[in-house]
């Protein structure tokens, strides 16, 4: 079973880092202040772009570490369970979000691969893939995996 391929701590770390990324990712848009969420006691930091951006990067490092470690474990396991379609879509969306996020970090740093007129497509792809991943995670339930 896939649960035996991935240690429990990795699965929990992936889940919580992904949830944190979703929250801080939404925080990159000016919505928490507008809709009073940042006004709730203890949530003021959600309205601070510099805090949410720094947390987004920190969580992205954790997420990418776990995701690549899990990918290696998956690819290196002979008796892999057959993935249902919903899990395959999830994996594809996770990879897409990770790659577009990495490209954005490179764009801001030492390797700007996109021009001023095209960087928007990178941002829109990252946002669109993250929204799609959230929708799939919530509304497309996974059947139990079977061993091939």
């Amino acid at each position, binding site marked *: 079973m896939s649960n035996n391929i991935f240690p429990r701590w990795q699965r929990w770390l992936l889940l919580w880092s992904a949830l944190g990324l979703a929250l801080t990712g939404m925080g*990159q*848009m*000016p*919505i928490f202040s*507008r*809709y*009073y969420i940042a006004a709730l006691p203890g949530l003021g930091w959600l309205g601070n*772009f*510099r805090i949410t*951006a*720094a947390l987004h*990067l*920190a969580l*992205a*490092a*954790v*997420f*990418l*570490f*776990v*995701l*690549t*470690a*899990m*990918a*290696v*474990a998956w690819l*290196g396991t002979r008796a892999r369970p057959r993935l249902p379609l919903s899990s395959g879509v999830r994996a594809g969306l996770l990879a897409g979000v*990770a790659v577009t*996020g*990495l490209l954005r*970090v*490179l*764009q*801001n*740093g030492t390797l*700007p691969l996109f*021009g*001023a*007129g095209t*960087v*928007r*497509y*990178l*941002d*829109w792809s990252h*946002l669109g893939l993250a929204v799609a991943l959230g929708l799939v995670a919530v509304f497309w339930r996974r059947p139990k995996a079977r061993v091939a």
Partner: protein
Amino acid sequence: MNRRKFLLTLGTAGAALAAPGPAERLWARDAKPSDEPLATLFDLSKCEGCGACVDACHEAHQADYPEPEKPFPKMYPAKVKAEDFSASRDVDDRLTPYNWLYIQSATVKKDGRDLTLNIPRRCMHCTHPPCAELCPWGAAAVENNGTVRIDDTICLGGAKCRAVCPWHIPQRQTGVGLYRKLLPSFAGNGVMYKCDRCFARVAAGGVPACIEACPNNVQTIGPRSAIVAAAHALAQKTGGSIYGETENGGTNTLYVSPVPFATLDAAVAKGPGKPGLGQVADVMGSEANLAKSVLLAPVVGLAAGALRLVGKLGRKGEDDHVE
């Protein structure tokens, strides 16, 4: 930059600034465009505050100013307010969506006497602009020549760029732009506007309108290394101070003033649309280490995954051997 190249650049920049004729650009009109970002240098000792640059900016950008549709969409929640400058287009004592350049004045003491300095203010065009690097919608971006631009066709007017800019430069006009076609009442609030350093004019081989119109050659434009060298040469010659070289991790707008900028910062009027001249933190630089961690994380993850696999294979081999 090696020593020879630095001295050559310094000499070129110094000669250009010392030349009796106009020194508005540090490269020939027909020169091959450099890969290096362009920067500008303001020699504040030359500015008389005549406002020719502000007028030229207005004239050059008439077609770029917003024409909002009224009434504005009703905003939810009600605390979200419209920002409307369309009825005050002539305001020229601060930055607005209709005024991308204005002149700050500061009267300070120098050598026991009053000295009034005029400081043209606009976007600093940072080398790592937080407005562009943190815009979640890709509306603000850095052009190859170092100009930071906001695309008014896709900007939603969330004003994050203004919040993260150390000088809070971009200004919002409600009632215009893409947000009206998406969720006008619930997301966005117009379009953000600021100086685009006359991108089209420069791309066509010209110089920004403010530089062309200045009767005193206050401003010079050229490759950043030449402009930085020219700023240092001028500051050394006049005993002046430099602003913009290292602020926010470095900008493409450098000022040289005969009095320290801390003194000017204390003397200028500050507030909405009126940026200061104080020390500012390097917004994107503070995230650089986290960004490195993000780039390193997949490599560490691959190594950790591979080590775990090798460990599992080793244990399996031992088990097989025991059997």
